[in-house]
């Protein structure tokens, strides 16, 4: 049984239909990526799963719960953590407090291990615990956003554009880390503009175009698909 099952989801912004019937599945232990150009609906899909946006039709199932009927602040308790587009760390709180907020839903008990786990993944975060998060560099903020999401001990990690605005060497590092997190057993749903990198680390992928899924396959097959190569990998 898939860990997450999105079925025929239609999400609107006002009267504009941004998602026109999206269906997808994520299995335990996978990295699944959504690729597509700007405005295709990748972020909207993640935000619908995370409960920030409510679809007009369709269901999002996680275990036996329908997330579209779950209050937004309860979704993290069902095992979904979201590292959103633009990172959206709490800029005026310290780095440590940001991590603490990530574990908010779990209460204060036994989170020491989780701090250690984040510090191991991101040693640079550990050096800056007392700093205001807004003073971190872009790469560090991205690491903090992922770290904050991991603090919830989710079953499924939603990652939205983790490479956005980062220097190539940092992009490499962030993707390495995602692979590492996945190797430790975390299931990941990854939205990326950088389709090349995303398909390198993912097991499967979905291609979105104007609110619809037009293609779904293993990452390997997508990477060699002619349409994908032309449209998203910048090859002729």
């Amino acid at each position, binding site marked *: 049984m898939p860990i997450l099952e999105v079925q025929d989801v239609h999400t609107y912004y006002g009267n504009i239909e941004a998602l026109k019937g999206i269906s997808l599945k994520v299995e335990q232990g996978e990295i699944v990526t959504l690729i597509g150009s700007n405005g295709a609906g990748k972020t909207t899909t993640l935000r619908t799963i995370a409960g920030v946006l409510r679809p007009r039709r369709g269901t999002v199932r996680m275990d036996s719960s329908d997330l579209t009927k779950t209050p937004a602040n309860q979704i993290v308790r069902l095992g979904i953590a979201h590292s959103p587009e633009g990172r959206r760390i709490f800029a005026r*709180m310290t780095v440590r407090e940001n991590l603490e*907020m990530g574990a908010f839903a779990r209460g204060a008990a036994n989170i020491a291990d989780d701090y250690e786990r984040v510090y191991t993944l991101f040693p640079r975060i550990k050096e800056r615990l007392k700093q205001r998060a807004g003073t971190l560099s872009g790469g560090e903020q991205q690491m903090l956003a992922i770290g904050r999401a991991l603090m919830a001990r989710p079953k499924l990690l939603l990652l939205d554009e983790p490479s956005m605005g980062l220097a190539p060497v940092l992009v490499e590092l962030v993707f390495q880390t995602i692979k590492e997190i996945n190797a430790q057993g975390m299931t990941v749903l990854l939205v990326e503009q950088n389709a090349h990198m995303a398909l390198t680390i993912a097991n499967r992928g979905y291609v979105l175009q104007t609110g619809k899924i037009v293609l779904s396959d293993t990452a390997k097959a997508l990477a060699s698909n002619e349409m994908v190569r032309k449209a998203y990998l910048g090859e002729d």
Partner: protein
Amino acid sequence: MGEGKDIDLLAAAIVIGITNGAFIALIALGYTLVYGIIELINFAHGDLFMLGTFACLTTLTILGFGTEVGIAGTPWLALVIAMLVAMAFCGGLNVLAERIAYRPLRKAPRLAPLISAIGVSFIFINIGLFWQGPTPRRFPDLLPQYDFLSQFFGLHTLVRFTVKDLFVLSLAVPLMLGLAWVIQNTRMGKAMRAVAQDSEMALQMGIDVNRVIAFTFLLGGLLAGAASLMYGLYNNNTVFTLGFTAGLKAFTAAVLGGIGNVSGAALGGFVLGLLASLTVTYFGGQWENVGVFSLLVIILVFRPTGLLGQIQGDRA
């Protein structure tokens, strides 16, 4: 008048200013907390403070201290009870107002809750009018008339630092420090800061945003309730229109310090109290509001975010 007298006058004005600044700061904190979290200027907050003075008055009357005639010594227990009643009353009422008048408008355009707050203000004023009538009410003068400087230190000076001043400061300062501690260190305080910065992300962390907002209104109400007893005992009068002037001053203090910024509101309160007192001392009472609001205009022209204001931009 010799030079000593000039300095005396200045020092006297400063002591009065600091004490008055303490009430203003406590009320200003209620404005700034709410603004910080939902960007609402809670116009009813001054009137909540006014109702707090009435709650104190009624409590003291029920306890038999409505008039101080024939009372030897200060009924400390009654004062503690009156303060707790006023704090609970203002805190509860503020939470209720949020639930009924502001929460349903959470997703409405910004102007709607603002108008709603003006409506709540009118309701509070009329409750006050119904409760204690249209004429100013005398608030019992229950604190000892003891001046530390002349009676304890034997100084011959215009400056007075009385039990009243000490009472106000020794309550107000710990309350402010306590508030700062709550915001800095408690789970709820951290949740407040998270909601203030990005309420959508706060939801994603599992924070019950509505509860945090209600808690913020509770804190603001508790401080207004405490301020109301101090005000009553210090000034020995209250009236149903008190909320308008007190609220306007406190709001000015909050803007002065940088609205949304908690230390800013405390600082703004004291600066405003001092400025008002200095204006009264050197230019006369009729110039008080001129001084206060001129300062506001000057600050807003040269430093629109207030003295300690945040630079907006990180999706604050």
